[in-house]
C-alpha cells in the first residue's frame, strides 16, 4: 500500500514539473485538476487501519472540489478574460523545469533534516519532501507567472502541497476543521475568480505586472 502512495506522490511531482513546463493557461488548469484528482485518493491510503467514513468523505470532497469545482471556476474566468497563455514570465517556461528540479532537491534536503518524532508513522517517506516540493513549486508559479490566473493555479498547487502533508501526517485533524479548510479554500478560489473577472473587465488584461499603480 505504501508503494501505491509512493506512486501517487511521484505523479504529483511530475505534474508539478509539467505545470512548470507549460505556458498556456488551459492545459495548466487541466494539470492542476489532474493533481487534485490524484490527491483525492491519498486520504484512502494514508491510515493503516482502513479508510474510515471520515476519510472517505474527505476523499470525495477533495475530488469534487480540487478535481471538478476549481477547474470549472477557473475555466469560467479564463473565458471571461481574453488571455490565452503566459505573456512573458519572469522565468521562461523552459528554464522553469530545471529550477523546479532544484527546488525538489532543496526540499529533499529539508526533509532529511526533519526526523519524525517517535510515535508518528507515515504512509511513505516521500510525503514530506514531496509536500515541500509542491509548496515551493506553487510559490514559484506565483512569483514567476504574471497572468493572474496562473497565480491562482500556483496558489492551488501550494494548497495541494499542504494537503499532501496534512493528510499524510496530521491524523488528529478533526473533520470539522477539514471541511472548514476546504470550504475556505473553495471560497478563496471563488473570490479570486471573481476578482480576475473584474480585472479582465476593467483592464481588459489579467497581467499582474501592470497592476502596479500603488507604490511609494
Amino acid at each position, binding site marked *: 500500500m505504501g508503494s501505491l502512495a509512493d506512486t501517487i506522490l511521484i505523479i504529483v511531482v511530475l505534474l508539478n514539473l509539467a505545470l512548470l513546463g507549460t505556458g498556456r493557461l488551459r492545459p495548466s488548469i487541466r494539470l492542476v485538476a489532474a493533481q487534485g484528482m490524484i490527491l483525492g485518493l491519498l486520504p484512502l491510503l494514508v491510515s493503516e487501519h482502513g479508510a474510515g467514513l471520515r476519510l472517505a468523505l474527505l476523499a470525495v470532497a477533495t475530488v469534487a472540489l480540487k478535481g471538478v469545482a476549481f477547474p470549472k471556476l477557473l475555466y469560467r474566468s479564463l473565458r471571461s478574460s481574453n488571455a490565452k497563455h503566459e505573456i512573458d514570465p519572469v522565468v521562461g517556461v523552459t528554464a522553469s523545469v530545471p529550477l523546479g528540479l532544484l527546488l525538489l532537491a532543496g526540499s529533499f534536503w529539508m526533509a532529511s533534516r526533519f526526523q519524525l*518524532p517517535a*510515535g*508518528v508513522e507515515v504512509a511513505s517517506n516521500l510525503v514530506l519532501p514531496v509536500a515541500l516540493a509542491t509548496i515551493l513549486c506553487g510559490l514559484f508559479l506565483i512569483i514567476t507567472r504574471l497572468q493572474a490566473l496562473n497565480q491562482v493555479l500556483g496558489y492551488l498547487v501550494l494548497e495541494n502541497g499542504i494537503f499532501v502533508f496534512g493528510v499524510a501526517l496530521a491524523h488528529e*485533524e*478533526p473533520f470539522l476543521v477539514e471541511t472548514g479548510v476546504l470550504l475556505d479554500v473553495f471560497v478563496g478560489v471563488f473570490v479570486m475568480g471573481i476578482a480576475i473577472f473584474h480585472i479582465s473587465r*476593467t483592464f481588459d488584461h489579467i497581467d499582474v505586472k501592470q497592476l502596479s499603480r500603488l507604490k511609494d
Partner: protein
Amino acid sequence: MTIAALILIPAASGLLSFWLPSQLGRRALLVAAAVMHLGLTLSLWSARPEPTPGSWLAVDTPGLLFLTIASTLFMASAIYCTGYLSHEDVATHIDREERFLFSNEPESVFIGCLLLFLASMTLVTLSQHFGLLWVGVEATTLASAPLIYFHRNHRSLEATWKYLLICSVGIALALMGNFVLAVSASAAQAHDVNLHVTNLLANASKLDGVWLKAAFLFFLVGYGTKMGLAPMHTWLPDAHSEAPSPVSALLSGALLNCAFLGIFRVHQLCTAAGEGEFSRSLLVVFGLMSMSVAAVFILRARDFKRMLAYSSVEHMGILAIGVGLGGAGVLGAIFHAFNHSFTKAALFLAAGNILLVYDTKSINDVRGVQRRLPITGALWLAGFLAITGTPPFGTFLSEFTVLRAALDADRAVVATLYLVLLAIIFIGMANVMLKMSQGTAPESTPNSSKDKLVSVGPSLVLASLVFMFGFYIPKPLRNAFDEVTLSVREKKDSLEESATIVPLRVENETLTAISTEVQSALHEHGTEPKTDAEEIRE
C-alpha cells in the same frame, strides 16, 4: 449561548442584509448588530460563559481582550458608516485620480460583508482550537476583500487583488503551520492531545521541540503576513489606503490584532514548552524590521492614508518587540494593542472626514484642517500625539513599558534602535500631520460638508478612551493585562527562583508592574513572580 450569539448575530444579520431591500433597514441592522455585539462582549467581562461542547469556542483572557477591541472598533465604524454611506453617491461618478467613471459596490453587499467580517473576527478571538483559529483568519480575509473593493475603481481593484493573493498565500503557510504543530502534538505519547489550545498548553512539555519550532516559523510568516510584519507587510498600505475609511479603521485596528492573537497563542505554547527563547528572539527581529520599514516610508509619505497604514506596520512591530522581550514587555504589548487600535481607528475615521472634504489623499493638497473642520483638525492633532506615543496618552505608557522591558533585559541595542526608530517616525509624522492640520485653509474645498456628530463622534470617543488610558486603566482590564503577562513567563524553575529574589526588588516591581491581586494569587500557588529583569537575565 452567549458565545454562539456573538458569532451568529453578526453572521445572520450579515446574510440578511444581502437581501434586505430598504437602505434604512440595512443601516439600522448594522448598528443594531454592532450594539448587541458590543453589549454581549462587555457582559463577558462580568461573567464568562461555559465553553461550547467540545470546548471549540471559549472565552479566555487574551481572546476577550482582542474581542473587546474588535467589538468596540466595529461599533465606532458602524456608526460612522451610517454617515459615511450617505455621502457616497450611489450613481456612477468620476474617479478622483484617473478621471474615469466608476460606481460603488451595492450597499447591501458592503454592509453584509462588514457584518460577516465581524463574525469571522469574533470566531478568531473565541476559537480555542488552532485549526478553527485558522479557519477564522482565512474567513476574515475573504469577508474583507469585497470591503476593500467598495469603490470599484482601478486602484481599489489592484489593492484587493494584492490583498487576496498575498494574504491567501500567507494564510496557507499558517495552515502548514497547523499541520506541523499537529505532528509535534502527535509526538506526545498521550493520544488525546489535539490542537485544542488548553489541551496543548497542558501537555506542552510533551510536545516535540523541533517540530514545534518549525510550526512557529510557519505561523510567524503566515499570520505575520496578515498582521503586517515586514517584509510580509506589502499588501497593507495598498489595502488600507484604498479601502473606505471605516473599513481601513477596522482592518488596521481589529484585523491586524486578530492575526497577532494567532501568533501570540503559538508563542504562549512555545513558552509553555520551554522554547520561549526561540520565539522571543524571532519576534524581536521581525518587530525591529517592521519598525524600520515603517520609518522609511513614513519619512517619504505622500498619501496620508498610506502613512497611517505604515504607522500600523510600525505598531505591529512594537507589539512583536514587546512580546518578544517578554516580562513587562508583554504587558506593554497587550496594553499597546488597545492604545494603538483605538488611536489608529480614530485617525482613519478622521482621515475619512478630511478625504471627504478635500477630496484628495495627497498630503501636499491638504492645509488648515483645524480651520476648515475644527473638531476633525483637533482629532488629527490629538491622534498624531497619541500615535507617536506622547504623554498624556496611553500609548506613551505602553511604549514606555516596552522600552523599560528592553532595558531591564539588558538589550541595549534593541532599546536604542527602538528609540531611534520611534524618533524618526515622530519626525516623519510631525512633518506630515502638523502641515495638514495647521495653516490657512483654502477658500473653497471640493466638498462643503462640516463636522457632524456622526462623523466625529466615534473617533472622539475612541480618542478620549486612549486619553483615559494615559491616566487610568480600569481594574479588570489591568488584571487581564497582568494575567496575560504572567501566562507567558517561563514556567520552568520559577519555584527555586522564588527563593533567590531580593525582597525589595520584588516588592517594588510587583507593586508597579504587576498588580497586587495577581501577586497574592501567585503567593497562593506558592510561586513568587520574578522581576522582569531577572527573568530574562537568568
